[in-house]
């Protein structure tokens, strides 16, 4: 029953899309928004009910599939896989999307393409939900591209602006780079395991499909990760996301902060079992580089949406890093909490932009709290959540990540930087978010004009803000519910509540390549022995007293996979729990200290005015310039890749026109000359032979061409008619 209910909920936005495509203009301004938002809220209600039923009822995962394709001799089904992660993601997407749909009715008010906006949003919701439901790599890829398409349309929604159409194009093409490698990853999987469903791939890998080909498996994992890298805007394919802020703000909130960009993290989570230690290490470093780099840029940005864009990249980096070090639950938990508070931040910034009549520069804002208190309070809630203030949602998830990383780094001292970077970035996060909040809503009004005309947004916009604020504050608390019971010999079972974290933990892989000590993969060990990795990686978890991390691993015996090689539990299950305690406590302390340090600095700079930002920028001029120019990545790509491809393209054009056509035309001219020479000179003297045949061909062609110029069509019709008649006559005669 359950899967079909989800499929209905999934198809609701599609129905909205189809309706609005054909009837959008007639349905008109407010009503098309009501239709789309109504369908979305229905879907959200359905999925909430299902999520609660699931949480109470402990059902196992469900699969439905129908035959779709057969690639060669390998059948590809179009299938839906529902486990607790699917449900959590599905609910998150529908709930956040509902809030944003409602908000958009207010935000997009008066736009001439109002119905079109909801058309695209509905298609996006359908595609995103399809992505979450898909049970195969091909299905993921299909919806992956479709969400990319919607993102393209929505970034370029105001396509009259060249900057918007450029940003849309850039987003799609940069993503295509990742997608092309994603496709190669799928090809490897299909080629070696003969399957594209996640389940089938895992089974095959577990049974040793890649035995002796560890490098290929690493390659495939990194290829698949590149898909995620594009979509989740990780270094070095992060360049599209800041530009994507050209889209309307609700789009930034829904697609470029809360849901679509998280799809990359979701993908990594899904394919986690086949990632080798080397691939995971690669992923972890990409995440670490991304999170620190973009946090640094966020410090100097002055456009309210760009600060949030870089903050998004940075937070996605945290998730990717967590997955890379094996903190599966932590990474995906952060995905959910981040979706709530980042959607709220973007909608809040939209409310500010709306209230300030399109102004986006925080240097011109200030003291807006008095003008738009609801926006200010909700924005503050999200700011504190993302900064990691204790007991707000971001605190739990970020601590969980830091604990995972700390666990990893403490067993792999050479990778200590993987812990240092996110800890520093945690301080930066608190700093740049408070900077943003203070400059926007507090301090002094720096532009009288903006301040004078600022106003609070209408109810249809602030109600979604309030809903999201409640979620941003409290969603971490739902994680407290499950309780651990020892089953002896180091194994545990969860009983009691099925909170958010419990739900996520239920879906985590029960087997992964990186947990194996198998010799078959020994070639791929790289610098990290798999066994060590798993010890460090998995022995960490969540920073909440009730759960103590160990959501990550222990699997109730009844659910343990039966297949060979999987009966061994991840080493973590037996690791001593006082160590976990140690990581959590340390991580919590370090994260909180970092947060406080960042907040204190922001207070010093922007409230007390002890340090002048302008002076700091002067002192650190080279660094400031580097950050303002976003490490020059756009410029780098422009002069190397873009210019290189365009050079190649014009070379191709030249080669085609000058060389190939030159050869063809030249030889034609030569033949004609020879023909005249032979026909008029040689032949007249009685020499015929070799060249004659060629000449005749050319002459015939020439004659036809010449007659083409006369344009006397009647002649040709006659000729063709005669020919046709002859053909018919010939047939008749022969029969």
């Amino acid at each position, binding site marked *: 029953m359950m899967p079909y209910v989800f499929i209905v909920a999934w198809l609701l936005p599609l129905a909205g899309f189809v309706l609005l495509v054909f009837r959008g203009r007639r349905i008109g301004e407010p009503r098309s928004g009501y239709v789309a938002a109504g369908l979305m809220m229905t879907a959200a209600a359905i999925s909430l009910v299902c999520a609660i039923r699931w949480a109470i009822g402990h059902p196992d995962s469900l699969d439905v599939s129908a*035959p779709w*394709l*057969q*690639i*060669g001799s*390998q059948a590809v089904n179009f299938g839906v896989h529902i486990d607790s992660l699917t449900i959590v993601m599905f609910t998150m997407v529908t709930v956040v999307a509902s809030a944003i749909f409602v908000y958009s009715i207010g935000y997009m008010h008066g736009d001439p393409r109002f119905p079109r906006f909801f058309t695209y949003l509905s298609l996006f919701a359908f595609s995103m939900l399809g992505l979450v439901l898909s049970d195969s790599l*091909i299905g993921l890829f*299909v919806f992956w*591209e*479709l969400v990319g*398409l919607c993102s*393209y349309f929505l970034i370029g929604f105001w*396509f*009259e602006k*060249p900057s918007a*159409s*450029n940003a*849309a*194009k850039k987003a*799609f*093409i940069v993503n*295509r780079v990742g*997608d*092309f490698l994603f*496709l*190669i990853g*799928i*090809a*490897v999987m*299909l*080629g070696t395991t003969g399957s594209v469903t996640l389940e089938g791939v895992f089974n095959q890998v577990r049974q040793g499909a890649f035995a002796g080909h560890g490098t290929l498996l690493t390659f495939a994992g990194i290829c698949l990760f590149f898909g995620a890298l594009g979509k989740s805007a990780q270094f070095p394919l992060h360049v599209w996301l800041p530009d994507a802020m050209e889209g309307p703000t609700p789009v930034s909130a829904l697609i470029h902060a809360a849901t679509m960009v998280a799809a990359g993290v979701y993908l990594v989570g899904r394919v986690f079992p086949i990632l080798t230690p080397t691939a995971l290490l690669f992923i972890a470093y990409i995440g670490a580089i991304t999170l620190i780099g973009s946090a640094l840029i966020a410090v100097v940005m002055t456009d309210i949406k760009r600060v949030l864009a870089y903050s998004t990249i940075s937070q996605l980096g945290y998730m990717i890093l967590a997955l890379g070090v094996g903190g599966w639950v932590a990474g995906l938990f952060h995905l959910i909490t981040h979706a709530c508070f980042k959607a709220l931040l973007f909608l809040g910034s939209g409310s500010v932009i709306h209230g300030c009549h399109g102004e986006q520069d925080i240097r011109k804002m200030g003291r807006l709290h008095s003008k738009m208190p609801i926006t200010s309070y909700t924005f503050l809630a999200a700011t504190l959540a993302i900064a990691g203030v204790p007991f707000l949602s971001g605190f739990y998830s970020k601590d969980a990540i830091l604990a995972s990383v700390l666990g990893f780094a403490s067993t792999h001292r050479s990778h200590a930087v993987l812990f240092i970077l996110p800890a520093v970035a945690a301080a930066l996060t608190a700093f740049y978010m408070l900077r943003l909040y203070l400059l926007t809503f507090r301090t002094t009004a720096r532009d009288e004009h903006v301040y004078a005309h600022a106003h609070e947004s209408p109810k249809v916009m602030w109600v979604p803000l309030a809903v999201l604020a409640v979620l941003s504050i409290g969603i971490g608390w739902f994680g407290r519910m499950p309780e651990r019971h020892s089953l002896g010999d180091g194994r545990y079972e969860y009983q009691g509540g099925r909170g958010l974290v419990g739900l996520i933990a239920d879906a985590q892989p029960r087997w992964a390549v990186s947990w194996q000590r198998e010799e078959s993969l020994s070639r791929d060990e790289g610098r990290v022995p798999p066994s060590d990795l798993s010890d460090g990686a998995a022995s960490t978890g969540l920073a909440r007293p009730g759960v103590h991390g160990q959501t990550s691993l222990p699997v109730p015996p009844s659910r343990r996979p039966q297949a060979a090689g999987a009966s061994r539990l991840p080493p973590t299950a037996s690791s001593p729990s006082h160590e976990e305690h140690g990581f959590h406590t340390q991580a919590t302390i370090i994260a909180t200290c970092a947060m406080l340090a960042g907040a204190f600095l922001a207070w010093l700079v922007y409230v007390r005015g002890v340090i002048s930002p302008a002076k700091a920028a002067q002192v650190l001029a080279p660094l400031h310039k580097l950050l303002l120019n976003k490490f020059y990545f756009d410029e780098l790509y422009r002069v190397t890749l873009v210019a290189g*491809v*365009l050079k190649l*393209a*014009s070379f*191709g*054009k030249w080669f*085609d026109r000058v060389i*190939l056509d030159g050869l*063809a035309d030249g030889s*034609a001219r030569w033949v004609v000359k020879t023909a005249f020479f032979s026909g008029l000179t040689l032949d007249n003297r009685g020499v015929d032979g070799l060249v004659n045949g060629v000449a005749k*061909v050319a002459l015939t*062609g*020439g004659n*036809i*061409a010449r007659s*083409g110029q006369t*344009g006397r*069509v*009647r002649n*040709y*019709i006659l000729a*063709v*008619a005669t*020919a*046709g008649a002859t*053909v*018919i006559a010939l*047939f008749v005669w*022969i029969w």
Partner: protein
Amino acid sequence: MDNSWLLTSVIFLPLVGMGAVLLVPRQWIRRTALVFAVLAFVVSLGIVPQFRGATAEVFGPAYQNGFKLIDRLPWIHSAGFSIDYMVGVDGIGFPLVLLTTLICLLACIASWNIEKSPRGYFALFLLLETGMLGVFTALDFFLFYVFWELTLLPMYFLIGIWGGPRREYAAIKFFLYTLLGSVLMLIVMLWFYFSSNFEGGHTFNLIALSTPGVLPDFATHKTMWVVCFALLYIGFAVKIPVFPFHTWLPDAHVEAPTPISMILAGLLLKMGGYGLLRISYPILPHAGAMRVVAWTLGILGVVNIIYGALCALAQTDFKKLVAYSSISHMGFVLLGIALLTEAGFQGAMFQMIAHGITSAAMFFLVGVIYDRVHHRDISRLGGLASQMPTYTGLAILGFFAAMGLPGLCGFIGEIYVLLGSWQAQVLGPVGARVLTIIAAAGIVLTAGYILWSIQRVFLGPAKPEYQNVPDISRREIGVMAPLGGLAIALGVLPWQTVFNFVHGTLSNILKLIA
């Protein structure tokens, strides 16, 4: 039930239509042509029931017994020749016959505004349709050759008379290139004929020629395989067109009138791919299985994909851009066939049909703009999305289908070819994978030129000079809607719409090679 007349009537209905067009009064010409195009399409739908079910019985256990609706009559049996009129369809011929009648019908509607001597135009148009239908159904090499040449003549005139300013150059270029190919094909045809030994004589019968033992000399002489394969290949490569024989295509497209471009890209190019599948591989399976052949064709396929996309990126003439995109997309056909995997074959076949739909759509879309603004210079276009919203919606559908967006038809062909070629055995594990990665990189370039053209043509601020440009008309929607609908249908249900009908024949051809 004997329905052997079915194919023959599909093939010759347009020819009868040509006769009618030449006779009817002037004001009836268009309608007469349309009636016959519709008739041909409707009658061709009668083939579908033959392939329903798509079980092994439908295709037969071997390539040779997979043919349906065979119509066979002795034609020329004198002077030692034995030439039959023999037509029939199997899984690879049948979809192309349907595609031909459909695209011709749509092109006929798109030709409604041809003012310059419509009688000649529609007569040649219908003759061309007969020629193409003949190519896709002929089972006698001689007949195949006759029909092959029959397409050449009307195309030459249609470009050379109804074309743009450089039409003579384009027409003669097209003519000479194709003629070169057919001369080589003629040599191979005669070579096959005189080497064949079938029921005590020689034969042109394509089914017989593909039966082992019918070409006894070819069984032992490796050189003969390669030479014949190469000669045939050039003949077909000119049509596909494969680098470096492709330069006639952009010129021909730029000069050809819109409906003729639709046919040229949508159907005529498919004759090349079809020829490879129908003649080269079944008759010379050993040559196809050779490493050097697979390498050559595979590399050329990849070159087509990348080189075509790069050239498209550099164009400023909208129609030329679309022409180069055809070259790029047809590279997937060649790559899929060359590496001899089942998925690759299926992908190549699907790509031919999908490209038939998307290229016809794209050329039509370019034609719609050209009719309104009378130029095709991309740098002067822009902002059309606000002037022509419906048109823009349909155009984006067409272009994204060509770009290979999942859910639309272009995606399926590409992904089949790529997934298939990754697994190819014939080049060893590394070679095929390297080719696949390079080919897959082509999808980035494709996105590049498609999105860049969409941006330059449709997006941006509305330009004052195009203020009074009317949106797409009903007749034009009538042409575009079926293409758009098919692009979606084939993308969502590829198995039910295409693979179901083609996979049996394709795997039988592969069995011949293995």
